[in-house]
């Protein structure tokens, strides 16, 4: 930084310096359109129509001016009133005084009254079930949007620009209404009445355009009083009467407005509303292209599967008769060999049995007994004697041996003793 002695132009005239300070103050956005609250002192209305006063609280104060006709001044404002002002800082060069230039002034008691009415309205809508009502679903692709907002407003041009970015040429009808001041509520209600007409399918058909299927009601941010129309009952009722989804798009960050509470969708700003309800056409088209491709691929694969199944059935059909015949032949051969084997087994079993029977028969023949040294006694008339019963001494008997017979006579008969 250069020292003062470097300044060759000499000391700066105070007027220039004051203008320099003024420019700095006026250009700083922090000092523009500030909402301030405080107590009114030195309230004085001059014949010129300008009103001068000071706004103060316990920590500081500043002079303020309301230029003639700049804004409506509530007649109840007087010395000591608590007020909210919307003001910008300026420097009055003639006196070097910094002062507030007031754009709007409201007694706080009025705001308090409005707040009370707002709360009552919300309570009433709650009781009627309107706050918790089922919302209209937002269409995926709106075919005709109605924008109800300030004509020529920054909010409108923001929305228009954003819509064109997302969906060039999207059909829309702008209904320009006042969005602040005493006539705002009435104009918004009339604007919404028009959206109801535009959303009627039969009337839309007569006009040869799709009916309005989405309404964005909005404006940019402002002081609570600027936005107050959106807290009034007629506007709330008109929102509730909308047969199509309605987005409340009022720029503000603090308290929710009644319109936010009852609309089908709440957006924080008009631009936010567009972002949320207008899809990107490019993305939509990309999605449909992708679906189209998936549909073709999946269908082709299904058809190929059907074709494969058919080919397999066809080849099985060709060989099926031969396979059947072979199987039958095999079965037959199986039966035949099983039959042979069964017969064979049966014969073998019978032969063995016969041989066994033969052997038994041979072993029990009387001749075989006689061959082993036994003899058989018969009466002369051929009766085989197996007991002494009936025998008499001197009786003639015949003895049979293996190789012949011999006559004999019974000499002595003795009963066998059981104890022997």
């Amino acid at each position: 930084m250069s020292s003062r002695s470097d300044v060759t132009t000499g000391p700066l005239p105070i007027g220039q310096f004051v203008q320099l300070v003024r420019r700095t103050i006026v250009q700083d956005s922090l000092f523009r359109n500030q909402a301030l609250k405080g107590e009114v002192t030195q309230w004085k209305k001059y014949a010129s129509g300008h009103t001068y006063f000071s706004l103060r609280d316990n920590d500081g104060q500043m002079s303020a001016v309301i230029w003639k006709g700049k804004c409506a001044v509530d007649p109840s404002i007087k010395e000591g009133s608590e007020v909210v002002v919307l003001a910008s800082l300026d420097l009055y060069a003639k006196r070097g005084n910094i002062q507030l230039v007031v754009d709007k002034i409201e007694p706080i008691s009025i705001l308090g009254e409005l707040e009370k009415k707002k709360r009552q309205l919300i309570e009433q809508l709650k009781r009627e079930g309107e706050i918790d009502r089922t919302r209209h679903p937002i269409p995926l692709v709106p075919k005709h949007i109605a924008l109800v907002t300030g004509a020529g407003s920054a909010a409108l041009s923001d929305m228009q620009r954003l819509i064109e970015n997302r969906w060039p040429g999207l059909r829309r009808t702008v209904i320009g209404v006042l969005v602040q001041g005493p006539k705002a509520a009435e104009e918004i209600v009339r604007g919404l009445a028009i959206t109801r007409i535009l959303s009627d399918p039969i009337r839309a058909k007569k006009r040869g355009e799709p009916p309005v299927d989405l309404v964005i009601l909005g404006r940019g941010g402002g002081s609570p009083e600027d936005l107050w129309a959106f807290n009034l009952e007629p506007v709330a009722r008109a929102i509730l009467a909308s047969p199509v989804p309605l987005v409340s798009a009022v720029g503000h960050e603090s308290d929710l407005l009644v319109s936010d509470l009852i609309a089908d969708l709440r957006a924080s700003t008009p631009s936010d509303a567009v972002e949320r309800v207008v899809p990107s056409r490019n993305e939509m088209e990309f999605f449909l292209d992708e679906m189209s491709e998936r549909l073709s691929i999946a269908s082709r694969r299904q058809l190929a599967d059907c074709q494969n199944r058919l080919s397999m059935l066809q080849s099985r059909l060709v060989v099926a008769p031969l396979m059947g015949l072979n199987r039958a032949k095999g079965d037959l051969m199986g039966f035949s060999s099983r039959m042979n084997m069964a017969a064979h087994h049966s014969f073998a079993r019978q032969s063995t049995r016969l041989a066994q029977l033969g052997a038994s028969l041979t072993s029990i023949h009387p001749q075989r007994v006689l061959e082993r040294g036994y003899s058989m006694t018969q009466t002369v008339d051929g009766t085989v004697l197996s007991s002494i019963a009936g025998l008499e001494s001197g009786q003639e008997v015949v003895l049979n041996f293996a190789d012949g017979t011999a006559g004999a006579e019974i000499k002595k008969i003795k009963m066998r003793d059981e104890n022997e």
Partner: protein
Amino acid sequence: MSDEIPTYSDAVQRLETIVSTLERGGMGLDETLKLYEEGAELLKLCKKELAAAEGKLNEMQLDELESELGSETNDSNA
């Protein structure tokens, strides 16, 4: 599907179901062809819907609109 023209979201939802059914596979020829035809119809409809969103841009003041719509406004306010 009913005879009524489905909304874009309904159409897209049905289309997604059809595509994933076909992708899962396992259906017969008749069903495949039927689903494909339905899917293709839905795609056509969706594309038509996208095109339908394009249109005139009206920008009017309240009074102009009211006088243009004429008696309709009165009907609606009644």
